[in-house]
């Protein structure tokens, strides 16, 4: 306040300080800023009254509106479920065959199924259901445990080699590693297994076929069947088709026979609702159409 004086150019007062001949204008805060400051303060006071806000030692002000985030989200989820109930309740109550015959319901299955599948199943089986190395192709029509909706729903519910007590269990033994078969025998049965699906074999492989057939009859038929067509009760794959979960080339088949295989699918009961599992079972059935 030492030498506050009026600036001749702007007509405003200066702060009174002077640094090397430079002076500073004492411009007041614009009114509009003060206005918004006041408006924000009023809004805050209103918010304090209406919403949960101030701590009071052991408790806190609950707000006049009585809003609780957790109740809000629970209600939103319930409302959304009620909105969908017009068709989810029909999915829950009607049989698989009836749903499949109802185009309107199947449209819901396709729409909602795509999202559910991508969120939960797609990371292993691929968003298109075509699987990958170690993860079965669901769009191929080749099923380990059966492809009717009831069976698929059961697989989703209990999983395969999962931690559920009702889990489906299947294991391809490690014939080579555990010393059941020697190297020559594993090579022979590899060739034979590959011949079942009509793959072109090298000459050396063809020479092993008779021995391979014997090894197959002695060790593999219990699960894969005499013709190698697999057994769905045991989750044993059909070896005569061209669909391979772990690869059908000589090296992959050799690895499967030598070191065994034991896939693992988690059980979804508890994580997904019964209606969601039912819907997914139907959706998985539609994947083959998309694959064509």
């Amino acid at each position, binding site marked *: 306040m030492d030498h506050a004086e009026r600036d001749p150019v702007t007509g405003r007062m200066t702060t009174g300080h002077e640094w090397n001949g430079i002076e500073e204008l004492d411009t007041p805060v614009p009114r509009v800023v003060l206005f918004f400051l006041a408006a924000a303060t009023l809004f805050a006071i209103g918010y304090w009254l209406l919403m949960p806000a101030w*701590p009071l030692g052991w408790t806190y002000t609950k707000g006049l509106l009585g809003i609780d985030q957790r109740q809000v989200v629970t209600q*939103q*989820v319930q409302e959304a479920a009620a909105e969908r109930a017009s068709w989810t309740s029909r999915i829950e109550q009607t049989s698989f065959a009836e749903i499949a015959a109802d185009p309107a319901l199947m449209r819901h299955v396709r729409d909602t199924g795509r999202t559910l599948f991508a969120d939960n199943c797609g990371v292993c089986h691929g968003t298109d259901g075509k699987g990958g190395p170690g993860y079965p192709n669901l769009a191929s029509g080749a099923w380990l445990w059966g492809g009717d909706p009831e069976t698929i729903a059961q697989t989703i519910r209990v999983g395969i080699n999962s931690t559920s007590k009702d889990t489906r269990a299947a294991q391809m033994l490690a014939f080579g590693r555990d010393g059941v078969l020697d190297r020559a025998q594993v090579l022979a049965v590899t060739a034979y297994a590959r011949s079942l699906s009509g793959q072109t074999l090298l000459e050396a492989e063809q020479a092993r076929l008779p021995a391979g057939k014997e090894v197959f009859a002695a060790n593999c038929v219990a699960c894969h069947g005499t013709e190698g067509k697999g057994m769905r009760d045991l989750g044993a794959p059909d070896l005569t088709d061209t669909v391979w979960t772990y690869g059908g080339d000589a090296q992959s088949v050799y690895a499967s026979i030598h070191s065994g295989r034991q*896939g*693992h699918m988690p059980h979804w009961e508890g*994580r997904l609702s019964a209606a969601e599992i039912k819907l997914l079972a139907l959706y998985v059935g539609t994947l083959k159409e998309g694959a064509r």
Partner: protein
Amino acid sequence: MPNFHRKLERSAIGFVLAIIGVSAIGGFVEIAPLFTIQETVEKAPDMRVYTPLETAGRNIYIREGCYACHSQMIRTLRDEVERYGPYSLAVESQYDKPMLWGSKRTGPDLARVGGKYSDQWHVAHLINPRAVVPQSVMPKYGWLMRTELNTADLGQHLAAQRKLGVPYTETQIANASADAYGQASPDSPYAGGVGERYGEATNVRAFDGEPGRLTEMDALVAYLQVLGKLTDAAHKQTAATGK
């Protein structure tokens, strides 16, 4: 008022003290009551602590900065609840010191990822995420499979956690290294003690698919497979709110 401010802003020490005083109000109002208001942290008496192997996995999760892209906090939003499951409760992180809620959601939330996918999937995905999820932008963590897990100091990690309030017992701390090995080696003589000390529901298996070796992969997958599984308080809470 303008004159008071004019005076205050010209006194360096006075102005610093005033700033500290004003910003302390925020801390006092927002943080202090969390210690006095009972309902801040719910009750979960049946909640179990992390096993030594899971603790090691948690340390790797922190070391590799997984929290920079993955949250462990399902918010009270409809889309998150419908996708991931019940919203997270404070009590679910009571043994997470420090907590790993995160706020950057480049990847999916992991608060309830335990049991959602198979061990094999986690291993394949950590070695090369693109092998199983073609559109993934996650980096590869293949060396976890090649690196032996250091178990020698796990007892000390547990002791440090106990200092912070996690109720580890003396026997749990004394057997930390053996339990870490046992949890990933179901056929070894060390496996039995894990269930004894941490509950029979504890996952005891060769998480990385190789029973003989204890790798960092074992630890990280064991940790991921228990996320959201330490207590079912959140499921109970949701059921109670829904009524």
